[in-house]
């Protein structure tokens, strides 16, 4: 049951094959068994069981709230949850219990979803590995998969298995691990420069970043307000569409949400024919650092579209190479501003020093933030200084506009969706990953993803195939602003073609084999 898709389990709930409480308990037990993944910071067991009980009553009375009623979900720990600790994986917010729910959380609860817990992340979502949070790194469930293990055995140089585990990518790594390890059916991430799509690619999931303004940010503790969007992590495109249907729409509490009517619910048609589609391949995304495996899958995917009758053309996004620098300036500037409220006065951490307010601020912030956060605050404040503002912030904003225009031009030339890699390569082992600092890693890992955030476009990472090492590789589709449904429709067609394999966790979770009953190892069509 746990291996099923959200839609499938929803049908099972409706048919009474399983009750919400049973489902909730199965997930809770799996959460306990996979605790070593460090996917969850807080497991809200009591809340979830109570919600399950209420859901069960509704099902009994035939008053189900819809597809999400009774469905276990997880939420990244940078969304405000009423009565449940919300830490952003930072010392600064340890023990902070918000008095309100983020709009997206409230919407999920209003639809009857069960909140299993709050998932791990890089501190304040600053990172691309889910390795830099105060609660420790998240382990990629694929590290323990049959697929990966078997490949490792073939490798004579294989090191100690326990220290060989892989990162999930980030910063929504906890959410990705939670969904990937079957502890819930969908999870909320956040996506500022790729934080949902990157871990989705590394964990073999669908990672969807909606158009900026489609989904409310109220209650999402901000990284970069002008780029943040709540992201959705699921095991298939249809599930992402169901969750998007529950979340999308204007919010009076977020003035940046748009009022234009959007088609709801997000029912995705099954595309039979792609011959009317035009797929754009941005030539600037073919960078030297791109692994040959990803590159080869990318080109095979393009071939697939072409062979099915779609028009596939090369397009140019000429300002791509400036994007990551520009992102760095804008991101750190907003970070410097957004982090100013964490001063130890009202909530969160406060140091013991009380000689003066200023001294208290300084010590609180030194103790509360990790090096990554402090580094970004420092550079952001530098860029915002009166003498630097024009040279850095204003210039970066101009470049941002050019980058956004690049996309507009590509779409105006007739392209429906762009197809790109999501990441340079598959997930790397933790010990490998931490050889470089957070800043270097973020610059590398966000290379294909952050430009989309600067342009406010919808994008989705779809798992395509396993690498030679048996690890997932994802590709990214980018759509026109507010054409989220069209984007997901194309993604769904593609997903169906590639038949990405289900993660095989039996070996690890021996007593969970029942969990993964009736899961079949699907063919990997792109790998031949």
């Amino acid at each position, binding site marked *: 049951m746990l291996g099923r898709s959200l839609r499938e389990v929803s049908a099972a709930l409706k048919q009474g094959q399983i009750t919400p409480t049973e489902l909730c308990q199965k997930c809770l037990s799996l959460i306990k068994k996979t605790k070593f993944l460090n996917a969850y910071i807080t497991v809200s067991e009591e809340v979830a069981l109570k919600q399950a009980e209420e859901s069960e009553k509704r099902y009994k009375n035939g008053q189900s709230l819809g597809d999400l009623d009774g469905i276990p979900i997880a939420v990244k720990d940078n*969304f*405000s949850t009423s009565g449940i600790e*919300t830490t*952003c994986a930072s010392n600064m*917010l340890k023990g*902070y219990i*918000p*008095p*309100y729910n*983020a709009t997206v959380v409230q919407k999920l609860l209003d639809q009857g979803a069960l909140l299993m817990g709050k998932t791990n992340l890089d501190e304040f979502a600053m990172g691309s590995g889910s390795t830099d949070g105060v609660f420790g790194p998240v382990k990629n469930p694929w590290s323990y998969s049959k697929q990966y293990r078997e490949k490792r055995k073939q490798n004579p140089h294989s090191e100690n298995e326990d220290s060989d585990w892989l990162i999930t990518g980030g910063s929504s790594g906890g959410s990705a691990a939670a969904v990937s390890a079957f502890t819930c059916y969908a999870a909320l991430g956040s996506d500022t420069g790729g934080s949902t799509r990157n871990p989705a690619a590394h964990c073999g999931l669908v990672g969807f970043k909606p158009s900026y303004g489609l989904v409310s*940010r*109220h*209650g*999402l*503790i*901000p990284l*970069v*307000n*002008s780029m943040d969007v709540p992201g959705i992590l699921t095991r298939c495109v249809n599930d992402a569409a169901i969750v998007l249907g529950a979340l999308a729409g204007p919010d*009076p*509490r*977020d*003035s*940046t949400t748009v*009022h234009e009517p959007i088609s709801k619910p997000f029912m995705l048609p099954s595309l039979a024919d792609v011959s009317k589609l035009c797929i754009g391949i941005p030539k600037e995304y073919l960078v030297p650092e791109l692994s040959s495996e990803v590159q080869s899958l990318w080109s095979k995917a393009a071939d697939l579209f072409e062979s099915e009758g779609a028009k596939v053309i090369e397009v140019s996004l000429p300002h791509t190479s400036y994007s990551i620098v520009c992102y760095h300036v804008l991101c750190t*500037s*907003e970070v*410097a*501003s957004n*982090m*100013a*409220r*964490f*001063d130890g*006065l*009202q*909530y969160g951490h406060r140091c013991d020093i009380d000689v003066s*307010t*200023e001294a208290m*601020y300084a010590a609180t912030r030194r103790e509360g933030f990790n090096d990554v956060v402090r580094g970004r605050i420092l550079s952001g*404040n530098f860029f*915002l*200084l*009166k003498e630097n*503002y024009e040279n850095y*912030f204003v210039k970066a904003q101009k470049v941002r506009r050019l980058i956004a225009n690049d996309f507009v031009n590509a779409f105006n030339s007739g392209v429906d969706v762009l197809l790109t890699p999501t990441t340079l390569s598959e997930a790397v082992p933790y010990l490998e990953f931490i050889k470089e600092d957070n800043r270097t890693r973020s610059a590398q890992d966000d290379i294909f993803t952050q430009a989309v955030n600067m342009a406010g476009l919808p994008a989705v990472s779809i798992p395509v195939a396993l690498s030679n090492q048996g690890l997932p590789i994802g590709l990214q589709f980018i759509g026109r602003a507010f054409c989220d449904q069209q984007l997901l429709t194309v993604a769904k067609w593609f997903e169906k073609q590639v038949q990405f394999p289900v993660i095989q966790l039996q070996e690890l979770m021996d007593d969970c084999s029942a969990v993964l009953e009736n899961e079949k190892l699907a063919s990997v069509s792109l790998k031949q």
Partner: protein
Amino acid sequence: MAAPMLRWGCRGRRWAFARVDGGSCHRRGAPTGSTSNQIRGESSVAQQPLHTAQKTRKGEHKWAAVVGLEIHAQISSNSKLFSGSQVRFSAPPNSLVSFFDASLPGTLPVLNRRCVEAAVMTGLALNCHINKKSLFDRKHYFYADLPAGYQITQQRLPIAVNGSLIYGVCAGKKQSQVIPKTVRIKQIQLEQDSGKSLHDNLRSQTLIDLNRAVGLLEVVLEPDMSCGEEAATAVRELQLILQALGTSQANMAEGQLRVDANISVHHPGEPLGVRTEVKNLNSIRFLAKAIDYEIQRQINELENGGEILNETRSFHHKLGCTMSMRDKEGKQDYRFMPEPNLPPLVLYDATSLPAGADPQQVINIDQIRETLPELPSVTREKLVQQYGMLLEHSFTLLNEVGLLEFFQNVIKETRAEPKKVTSWVLNTFLGYLKQQNLAVSESPVTPSALAELLDLLDSRTISSSAAKQVFEELWKREGKTPGQIVSEKQLELMQDQGALEQLCHSVMEAHPQVVMDVKNRNPRAINKLIGLVRKATQSRADPVMIKEILEKKLSL
């Protein structure tokens, strides 16, 4: 000196308008303070009225002062600028604080429509250009009563620009001439007020009240003023305009109107001097005093070979002087940044309004223009035309809170001439209020009572001296009507000709010597007789009538 100072310090009690003598240049006054005893010396300068301190002395170098103002007015609205929480003065601390006001992580600002309308209305009343598109910015600084670590304001593109404010200053020998002056308005911007810090020095604690995060209008006045009185009069006029519009209650004592002054001095024709900013001006009187003090301080400093530092100074009203705030952080860099959570504020007019726009979602400048109430300048003009009063009287009527309404209510109910009403309201009534330091609303005499009293006077039922007596009785708050007082105290004029003739007769008989004097053409003697008769009537008879009777009886 003490009484008028007290009056000025009290809210709502401002009668005077600016007094300047002709020119507005500051000249060298006799330096009174020594640098070694700065505070005492300088405060004695400030207490001198400015215009006496700067009489021209031939051959002396002229100084000109340049004064600009930044005025923060709290917008009168039910809820805050960026959150739905209520606004109420003197509510218990932190009782009106939303999650946004407390800057809880993840909360976002939502602009209050009423505050935007108030800003547009104020902009229109101050002849501003209203920007169809304006932007919000974050201004960063760490302070305990600024929980977000930044204030949301409009630094780059404010909602209104390039306006003007016309105010009247009194001039001439008797200060009887009102001269209109204009100060340019650079901009009006919407911004969020900070919380309030209450410093408890005993326990070395600071207590924070976040109730105050209401909407502010920051009105920036160009440095077109040259002395404290001009600035004070301009602020008073702005205060009246805001109150007429209803966009701010603009009560300085409650912090609804706060003024910072930028002050410099220079020799005319030379570049402007280094300016200082004076803060903490919480009444119009202190504003004038602080500016004049600071001007004189700068002149003294420069004449003694010193230099002016670009610094923030605070006005100490007890000492009557300004003092450097000695901000140890040095120059603040506010690291301005666009507020990413608020889209540009777009306003429409009749021509740009999109067809089928939801009136709840758009703000139409032209529609607001149509609803503008009458402004104080128009009200004054009407008073002058309608009642034939002097312009300065119209200023006095408007400057005193509630006085105009009182005047109009009296006018409505009495048959007496408007000029008589004006004289009674501005002299007698206002005189009593001043003497007892009362506001119009605290007056023991109601408009109806005064109207009735003026009717009695108008119908010659009582004499004007009796009327003064009745007024004094009314002031005692004994709940009696003027009619009752008149009859109880028998203050009616004697209307009985026969009885009066009788009285005259008796007086003449009792004072044969005076009668002889009259007959001997002593011109003062008749007045003495009249006086004696009036005394006999307890001042109830009309002296004109007495004179007629006496003259007849004496066959003059």
